[in-house]
């Protein structure tokens, strides 16, 4: 089954490459997205027997979660991108389409691979396949962003590779056969050499953290998100980061199995809270609302890491937050993309009164903001609140306090920017050929918002089970 998930997007990519017409080609995206979503749901919920292809390729609970998240987000983004590319017909979209499909395949490989070496390869592949997407606009700035993303990303990934090797090597001192296969590692986790294992943990945290965009390795993020089209931002903030987080979850899983809880907790809490406050400081008085979203993504990666650091009672919330964050980020980036197109600027000095000019996108942007900052009854509220509950019931009062404080800082910063975007009187001068809300670019966002709200109101039982399984995988109690 794993091969299907990896290969059929590649086939679609090939097809897309061959299609000559700029108008027809984008339709390969929703086709692949729909098929992928269908396959994911089918495999995850109905075919438990397909979950294990071989020792290297299998789908465990965290994998299932991320697979569903990525596939859902990709589906809506693909719908959106049809409408989006319709607006950008002057620009060729062959690379765009192919790279998106390649990413889909590689993401599939990431979630399926149960072998850390293989997973590393897949992650690096996602990096490479997404790089050209940032360069879609083909101007100097996007070029610069792509360059930084590529180099910093590759460096980070290289560090992750070193970490992977460390991990493999940590078996040697106690005379075991070096391996990178998850099950074997989990089996011999308690016997791993502490020094090497901890070093590996840190290297992988920094390496995959670069890909997730934890401070201080986040530096590529605002540039990439700011210059890439909104839909790519959504794919990044919802999809790529989730894959990287999954990759990091593996080592966390191992550390839990190895009983390294005390050591990891300190480091994770530090890194997570650090990312949150750094993001907050950059968000305060941020005039560029796409960079703002990038920093918000940094913040939420921090929240995820904090959740892992708290461990035990907070794991459920963390797992849930992977989903809620991705969906909400999708809403935010897509609506922000619309606003950007309508005003031909992403600076709050020019952008006012979005609600009056783009009723749907404006309101969706505002709603997404409220959701991401944890207002009930949206999804992120549930996840963030249960992370907080975990912190308190885990007795980590200082963490909880800082967590709330940083959430507040972020809220203040985001609030100022978002409100000045959506409120007020829209500038008089209409941009020639300025974008107006249309079905194809609003409907997917609307549905995503619906999903976000749904996750806040009712979490379907199957998803609930997956979350619980994932918590168990990570060494928590269901």
């Amino acid at each position, binding site marked *: 089954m794993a091969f299907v998930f990896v290969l059929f997007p590649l086939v679609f990519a090939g097809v897309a490459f061959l299609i000559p017409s700029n108008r027809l080609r984008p339709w390969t995206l929703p086709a692949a997205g729909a098929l992928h979503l269908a396959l994911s749901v089918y495999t995850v919920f109905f075919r438990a027997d397909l979950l294990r292809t071989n020792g290297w390729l299998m789908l465990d609970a965290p994998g299932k979660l991320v697979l569903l998240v990525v596939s859902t987000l990709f589906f809506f983004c693909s719908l959106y991108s049809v409408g989006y590319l319709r607006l950008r017909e002057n620009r060729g979209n062959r690379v765009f389409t192919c790279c998106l499909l390649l990413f889909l395949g590689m993401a599939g490989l990431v979630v399926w691979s149960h072998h850390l070496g293989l997973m590393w390869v897949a992650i690096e592949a996602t990096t490479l396949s997404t790089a050209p997407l940032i360069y879609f606009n083909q101007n100097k700035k996007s070029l*610069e962003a792509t360059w930084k993303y*590529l180099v910093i990303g*590759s460096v980070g990934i290289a560090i992750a590779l*070193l970490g992977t090797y460390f991990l493999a090597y940590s078996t040697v001192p106690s005379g075991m056969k070096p391996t990178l296969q998850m099950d074997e590692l989990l089996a011999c986790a308690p016997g791993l050499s502490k020094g090497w294992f901890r070093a590996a943990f840190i290297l992988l945290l920094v390496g995959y953290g670069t890909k997730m965009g934890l401070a201080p390795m986040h530096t590529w993020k605002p540039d990439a998100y700011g210059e890439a089209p909104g839909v790519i931002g959504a794919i990044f903030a919802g999809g790529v980061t989730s894959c990287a987080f999954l990759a990091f979850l593996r080592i966390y899983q191992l550390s839990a199995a190895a009983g390294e809880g005390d050591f990891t907790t300190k480091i994770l809490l530090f890194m997570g809270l650090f990312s949150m406050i750094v993001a907050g400081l950059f968000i305060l008085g941020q005039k560029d609302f796409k960079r703002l979203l990038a920093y918000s993504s940094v913040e939420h990666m921090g929240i995820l890491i904090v959740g892992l650091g708290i461990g035990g009672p907070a794991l459920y919330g963390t797992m849930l937050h992977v989903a809620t964050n991705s969906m909400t980020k999708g809403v935010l980036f897509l609506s922000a993309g619309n606003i950007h197109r309508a005003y031909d600027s992403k600076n709050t000095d020019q952008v006012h009164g979005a609600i009056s000019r783009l009723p749907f996108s404006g309101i969706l942007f505002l709603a997404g903001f409220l959701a991401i900052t944890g207002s009930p009854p949206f999804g992120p509220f549930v996840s963030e609140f249960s992370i907080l509950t975990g912190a308190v019931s885990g007795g980590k009062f200082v963490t909880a306090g800082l967590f709330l404080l940083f959430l507040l800082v972020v809220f203040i910063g985001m609030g100022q920017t978002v409100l000045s975007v959506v409120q007020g009187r829209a500038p008089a001068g209409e941009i020639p050929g300025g974008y107006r809300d249309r079905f194809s670019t609003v409907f997917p966002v609307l549905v995503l918002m619906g999903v976000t709200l749904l996750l806040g109101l009712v979490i379907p039982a199957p998803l609930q089970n997956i979350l619980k399984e994932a918590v168990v995988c990570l060494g928590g109690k269901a």
Partner: protein
Amino acid sequence: MTELLNAILVVILVLNLFTLGTSRIQSAIRMVAVQGALLALIPILIREKFSLTSVIASVVAVLLKGIVIPLIMNRSLRSARIKREETPLIGLLPTVIIGAVITGLILIFSKMVNVPGGQTTTLIVPASFSTILVGFLLLITRYKAISQVLGYLVMENGIFIFGMLLVEAVPLIVEMGVLLDLFVGIFVISIITNHINRAFSSLDTRRLDSLKEE
């Protein structure tokens, strides 16, 4: 065989320092190529019994690191019409000294805390660490895009050295995957550098600082 291995590793360390020292990008490329090729050969050299997989791996690695990548780099170098890395962030001599100091420190350090695993006889671990750090040094101190790519390659080599310790842990497919990624990565990067060269009519990354918080 450990002696031979150590000898090669020493050569590699020296190559690091030369790479740091030279300002002619052309020669830097060559040295990195030589370094890569040497590393690729190690598995064959130190292994008593030859296994097909290791041979394949080595051959591919040599081809890639010794020939293909240098070619790509040279192409973009020629198209950029630049020869030297003028005025790096830190002068050339200081970087060499820093590199040497780092290498020395790491050697001493690895002696002091004896690395668990009994591999203390070989220089593998210190060599890989110092090579990685030299790679970082290049990445941080050089302004020309190509030099930074070289830094990335050196880093990659360092990691490759560490990979020696667990040839059997990393299966062929993964190794191939790593190499493929490396190749594609360099390929994409070189495309981007060409674009940069066209857009900014230079490979000086100091011009790529328009995206920032002001």
